[in-house]
């Protein structure tokens, strides 16, 4: 039996919710600067291309004739990301970018120097596919400190090209077409895309403001013996929510009762401000059914290095490693050596990291509140979501467009993180992984120019 996309009938690609995507993507079309590398008609093109092999694409500037073959049907969810689009627009308008989640300050010197040393020492060739032994060991050691769990670095740790690839490898390695997977909306956009590529049947449970608490009754009625896996992201992007012990206990007992796997994305675990971060794998009965994913990038402000990992019991690790070996085969060697160093940083590094980010959070949150947003408490990550409706724009995309062009600040419209974009149209996400000067400048611009 082979992996394949379940939606083979063309009409199945246009259920009512998809039409919202088409309408939604027209908003993006108006946001795209003409010079951007990845132009917007891509999304409608895939719909067309997936179902009608002989139509030409609506892009007259390319002198290509009849499309020889269509792109694969699995690509419906694969459009240019909102992050790239917003960043292009930000540059065009000279806007301060509080949209894309990477720092405008750099990583610590000791980690960079370790990478440089590795390059000079000639560590530039293929590393073992699932990670250099020293890094696997460092990851296991760090995980023990954080969660109390003892894992075998050789059998239970897989290094990947960033946490994004850990997610892709986990999903492609462990999910069959037609498998039911539960996600909590809003969710990081790669989840839906990759689940789609694996042919999963996605069930979304919406987390709602102000606390974005898990709706337990809805979860109980959604999860069943047919559920293959549930995706958890804690601390949560974009809301900053942290899953509480009560919520995780409940999820755990439902997973055990229904024999469901948990895929846990914990990249922001070191940015847990208002409560202790809890790894689902550490709950009783959970390690054997959980893949715990993390990375170097967010903790060490080196998002472009692409070193991530997945920790799971051997029978699940095997699936992750198989997929990984076809997706990227190996990870950047010098960066792995440096990551091993990074993970052995003293506790003081993490204490200072948290303190720094809490100061930044304070600047941004106070600023957003004073400007007139309804701000929802962010307990972790470097994101905060706000309700923009006091400013009278039609939806989140329109608001973000207005914010860039008229105010000179970038935020991300959150509706893209829902299966049904309507659920998120009142919310936008700001990031505070920027230096204080930038945060203050952004707040100043909003105070001066943002009018209700």
């Amino acid at each position, binding site marked *: 039996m082979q*992996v394949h996309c379940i939606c083979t009938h063309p009409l199945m690609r246009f259920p009512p919710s998809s039409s919202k995507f088409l309408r939604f993507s027209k908003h993006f079309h108006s946001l795209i600067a003409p010079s951007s590398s990845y132009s917007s008609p891509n999304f409608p*093109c895939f719909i067309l291309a997936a179902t009608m092999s002989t139509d030409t694409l609506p892009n007259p500037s390319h002198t290509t004739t009849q499309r020889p073959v269509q792109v694969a049907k699995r*690509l419906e969810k694969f459009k240019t990301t909102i992050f790239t689009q917003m960043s292009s627009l930000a540059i065009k308008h000279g806007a301060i970018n509080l949209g894309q989640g990477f720092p405008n300050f750099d990583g610590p010197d000791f980690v960079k120097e370790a990478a440089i040393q590795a390059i000079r020492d000639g560590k530039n060739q293929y590393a*073992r596919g699932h990670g250099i032994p020293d890094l696997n060991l460092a990851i296991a050691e760090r995980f023990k400190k954080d969660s109390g769990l003892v894992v075998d670095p050789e059998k239970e740790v897989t290094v990947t090209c960033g946490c994004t690839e850990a997610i*892709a490898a986990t999903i492609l390695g462990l999910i069959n077409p037609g498998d039911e997977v539960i996600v909590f909306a809003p969710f990081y956009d790669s989840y839906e895309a990759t689940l789609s590529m694996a042919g999963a049947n996605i069930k979304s449970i919406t987390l709602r403001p102000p606390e974005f608490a898990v709706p337990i009754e809805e979860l109980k009625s959604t999860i069943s013996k047919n559920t293959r896996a549930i995706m958890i992201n804690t601390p949560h992007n974009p809301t900053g929510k942290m899953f509480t012990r009560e919520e995780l206990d409940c999820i755990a007992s439902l997973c055990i009762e229904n024999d469901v796997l948990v895929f846990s994305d914990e990249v922001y675990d070191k940015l847990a401000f208002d409560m202790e971060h809890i790894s689902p794998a550490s709950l009783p009965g959970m390690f054997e059914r959980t893949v715990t994913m993390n990375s170097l990038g967010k903790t060490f402000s080196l998002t472009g290095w692409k070193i991530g990992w997945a920790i799971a019991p051997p029978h699940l690790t095997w699936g992750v490693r198989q997929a990984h070996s076809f997706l990227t085969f190996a990870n950047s*060697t010098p960066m792995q050596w440096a990551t091993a160093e990074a993970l052995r940083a003293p506790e003081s590094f993490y204490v200072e990291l948290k303190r720094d980010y809490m100061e930044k959070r304070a600047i941004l949150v106070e600023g957003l509140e004073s400007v007139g947003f309804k701000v929802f408490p962010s307990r972790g990550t470097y994101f905060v979501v706000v309700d923009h409706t006091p400013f009278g724009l039609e939806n989140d995309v329109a608001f973000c467009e207005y914010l860039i062009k008229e105010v000179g600040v970038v935020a991300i419209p959150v509706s893209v993180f829902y299966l049904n974009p309507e659920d998120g149209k009142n919310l936008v996400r700001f990031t505070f992984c920027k230096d204080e000067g930038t945060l203050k400048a952004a707040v100043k611009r909003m105070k001066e120019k943002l009018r209700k």
Partner: protein
Amino acid sequence: MEAKLSRAAKKLTTSPIQELSQLAQSCNAINLAEGFPDFPAPPHIKNAAVSAINSDFNQYRHVQGICDHLSQMVKETQGLDINPLTDIAICCGQTEAFAAAICATIDAGDEVILFDPSYETYEGCVTMAGGVPIHVPLDPPHWTLDPSKLLTSLSERTKAIVLNSPHNPTGKVFTKDELETIARACCSQNCLAITDEVYEHITYDTVKHISLATFPGMQERTVITSSLSKTFSVTGWRVGWAIGPAFLVSAISNIHVKVTDSAPAPFQEAALTALRSPPEYFQTLKSDYQSKRDYIVKLLAGVGFKIQFIPRGSIFLFAELPEDCLLSDVEFVKKLILEAGVVAVPGQGFFHANLSSNGISKGRCSYQKRYIRFAFCKSHETLAAVSERLGNFFNGASFLR
């Protein structure tokens, strides 16, 4: 819990190449199995990477300059016009570019033609995407393409042909005639071509690498995948690319962004320096590798291997076991590791039983267990050490009599 594995994952197995590498490491054997150099990467490129790290090029990025340089290089070497804004996607190595190209184009049941012997990853990738790999055998001893074998393998389900040239494991560089055959087949069948051209700058004698995309009707249906790895001896940096028509590249790029988001940032910066290397760099690359090729051909022929085909490109030599050797390739390699302290790759892993041509008897397939792949991307000292160890090994080789 094992039941939780996806069906695709259950079918796949660990890379035999990696397993042998691990055995070799535990025996301290000289590794002529995995295709990466044991000599340092070029200093100017390493310095560029170090500079990039120091200059804070450490966050997610897409370095458009890479596309600009590649566009220029492809124009100069192949004569193709590539739009750097729309026709190139930067990926985490050629591996990811290929995986993304497959995922972008292959639906369940689509057939994908692969030329046998072939690098093990292609089949696994096609299978993972739900495609059906169809193997067209190249004919020993010179690994020539018989057009009739290709033509009988085509069907209305053929979605793509995968072409790796210069070729791993044989070192073959597909000839103009063979490329024409493949191009005509693609056009008449209206299918795609996905090429792996990682050894594009490593060709020998006067052989020139010609990209399939240069043939009539091919540019609009071909995705070229390649990388820095082999050309610049940085296999561990994971910077590669896919070049092709905008609609395909855009799909590939969108997949790449969801699978890994970005290739390592400092190495993308260093790629700019690499791709700006002067013509002398590429000439030296070729001549250095050619002398290594000549050395290893002479060495292995000297100890009794049958070398009927001398590599015209890539960093591999596909040598046939001596006539009087009764061992299979796997048995021979195990002996080689344990007794000679040299490791190579048994060729059978590159051949696939599911040969699409009819009427190939088991007897005729026996050649599939007679080949060993040696990588010669090693320093002269390493090759000299191999020479000594093999000399001793073959002198005492009773299994040959």
